[in-house]
């Protein structure tokens, strides 16, 4: 096929690789079974209860040797238990050393220069090494780093980056995550593309990004820093969600959490307004920002600070009202909004002119993701069944995805223009003066020429 860039050789190589992987898997499985057997044997002999027998002990012993009598049943012992489900057993052990890896290049020259490409000395496998940030040592090992490891370790999903192991350097402060290496992140890729992704490609990307999010949410993990630079892409069209530095488990009822999460441009309005109890909807808002960015190649709300961010959001979507977002006035930072909003009744609207390449269904999906009211946003699993993904053009097969030269693989990167995820500290308070500014400027904002969608 002409459009398929892969040569015959590439396919053969892949088959070969698959066969090798399969053999390795079988070998590992045999080893695991052997180890499991040995473990059972050791358990039976090792630990030493020193005490004399009592009622229960005798019961258990008797039961072990003559099960039929104990239960008055005649189950065949050879078959008993054969149908039981056994957990595959993981192991635990101390950290390995980072010197098993040979550093190749820094992937990101930007903020911290923490991520590098490296080669595993034994196998030659290419990996990404991410050094954990250790700046806040007032509470011992940074809890963010612990959560990053804890949540990543818990994730097994095709669209979540694989954490292979955690290793340390010469000091206890040198801790590295060893991850599978991917050629691109979406942010860098979009910056270098002349045109946005095709609609069919955008769908394939969105489906994978939302699948990863749905998986996290189903395991009670909030990512809290979804954005294009945290979405990795390989040359086979596969997305991996990365950077769990802000991620954490949540629960029901919702715990009180810090609002200092999510990089400003992707931060949901309820966070900007100071909500202390928030949930998975903040990730869905970020998904909306990512969707918009895929469509236009530009981050959709590029605020300079919290107030400016809110003003950019209101400019595109209209101001919230008691009808569209009941209760928003009682959010901590909304107090500053009261005098300004009392007379205002601007209808919320998402202008289509800003997204020229999108269908009606696509625009409906986008406006639902970017609902100001968090309860109006769909859940990740609802997004997956949206008509947008079913209408033409259909999502492009991953194998048909174009390949791009990898900056991470070959050369250093430019410095980033994106603001970083927030640091710890006090959540900002917005003041009235600044808010007055927002609304003063609103009348002059471009409303867009195309039709506008009403939000329900």
């Amino acid at each position, binding site marked *: 096929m002409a459009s398929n860039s892969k040569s015959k050789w590439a396919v053969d190589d892949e088959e070969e690789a698959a066969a090798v992987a399969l053999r390795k898997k079988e070998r590992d499985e045999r080893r695991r079974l052997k180890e499991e057997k040995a473990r059972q044997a050791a358990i039976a002999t090792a630990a030493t*209860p020193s005490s004399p027998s009592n009622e229960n002990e005798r019961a258990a012993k008797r039961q072990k040797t003559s099960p039929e009598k104990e*239960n008055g049943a005649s189950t065949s012992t050879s078959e*008993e*238990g054969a149908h039981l489900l056994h957990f595959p057993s993981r192991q*635990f052990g*101390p950290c390995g050393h980072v010197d098993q890896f040979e550093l190749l290049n820094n992937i990101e020259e930007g903020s911290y220069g923490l991520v590098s490409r490296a080669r595993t000395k034994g196998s030659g496998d290419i990996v990404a090494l991410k050094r954990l940030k250790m700046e806040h040592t007032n509470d*011992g090992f940074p809890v963010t780093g612990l959560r990053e490891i804890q949540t990543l370790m818990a994730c097994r999903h095709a669209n979540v980056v694989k954490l292979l192991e955690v290793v340390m350097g010469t000091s206890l402060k040198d801790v590295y995550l060893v991850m599978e290496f991917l050629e691109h992140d979406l942010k860098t890729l979009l910056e270098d593309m002349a045109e946005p992704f095709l609609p069919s490609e955008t769908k394939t990307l969105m489906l994978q990004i939302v699948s990863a999010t749905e998986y996290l949410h189903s395991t009670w993990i909030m990512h809290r820093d979804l954005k294009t630079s945290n979405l990795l892409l390989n040359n086979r069209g596969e997305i991996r969600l990365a950077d769990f530095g802000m991620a954490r488990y949540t629960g029901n009822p919702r715990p009180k959490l810090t609002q200092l999460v999510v990089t400003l441009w992707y931060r949901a309005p309820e966070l900007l307004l100071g909500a202390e109890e928030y949930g998975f909807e903040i990730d869905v808002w970020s998904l909306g920002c990512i969707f918009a960015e895929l469509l236009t190649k530009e981050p959709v709300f590029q605020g300079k600070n919290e107030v400016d961010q809110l003003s950019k959001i209101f400019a595109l979507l209209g101001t919230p009202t008691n009808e569209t977002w009941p209760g928003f006035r009682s959010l901590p930072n909304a107090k500053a909004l009261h005098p300004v909003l009392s007379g205002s009744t601007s209808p919320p609207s998402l202008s289509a002119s800003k997204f020229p390449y999108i269908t009606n269904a696509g625009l409906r999906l986008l406006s639902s993701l970017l609902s100001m009211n968090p309860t109006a946003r769909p859940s990740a699993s609802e997004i997956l069944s949206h008509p947008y993904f079913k209408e033409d053009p259909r999502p492009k097969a991953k194998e048909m995805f174009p390949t791009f030269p990898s900056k991470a693989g070959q050369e250093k990167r430019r410095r980033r223009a994106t603001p970083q995820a927030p640091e710890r500290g006090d959540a900002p308070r917005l003041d009235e003066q600044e808010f007055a500014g927002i609304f003063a400027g609103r009348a002059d904002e471009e409303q867009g020429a195309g039709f506008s969608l009403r939000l329900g």
Partner: protein
Amino acid sequence: MAPISSVEYLSNPLVTSNQLLDLKNSERDNGLSVRFAQAQLTSAAGILLRLPQEVIAQAIVLLQRFWVSSRPEDREGFSPKTFSAATIYLAAKLSATPVAPRSVVNVYAYLTSKASPLLFVNPQGAPTDPDPADYYVSEGTYERERQRLFVCESVVLVGIGFDTRVALPYSLALTYIQVLGVSSASLARRVFEHLNAGLLSPQLLHLTHQPHALAVAAIYVAARETGIKLVEQNWWEVFDVDREDLGFLVLAYGSLANFAEAEAKKWKGIALSLD
């Protein structure tokens, strides 16, 4: 209804035969006693720090993993007391109820002082009017202890390969009791007592068996003790536990009281230092 627990892991990494043998070979004569006392210290500290039982249990399991997977030289730098403090601090930090390092240092100072109610610390019992000066932690001491706590925390993390996830049997046990149709407050209480006591077992039950097996065994033992009949034949198989594992665990839960008694006799009148 209890809140949905945020961290519902299903399974734990298990100890390997080599790890168990290495532990046995590297442990000194009092190894079992030290681990038993250390687990009690951790539990007592957790209670004084008002931590939920799940957090205390997580700390004890992490501590056990550390004993098993760290190299002997990793364990040299700190006392059993400091390792206990570091894991409690770590487990609390990861939970919904973190505690300040100052509280941890204070509580451990108290529990290892002349005023401590722990018998292996004060074999003659705690004085009736303890002197607060005995466990007062000065600013200077605190600063030093805090630094040690932090370094020790990192040593623990490196020793266990940073896998802090611990699956526990408590909520499983409650579900199983319901499924078996024998819900009663006294049975549930007894099951939890066994599960809590099982954490202290030097047999490292949480490293050798998965939570579902621990839950089933505790129910088996508790049902016998409270005279509740579990009619269904081989009911444990419904929960994917085989007879062999059940037998081992029933024995372990059943013999723990005797082990504790034997330990108390062995150390009667003698202090066991965890410092």
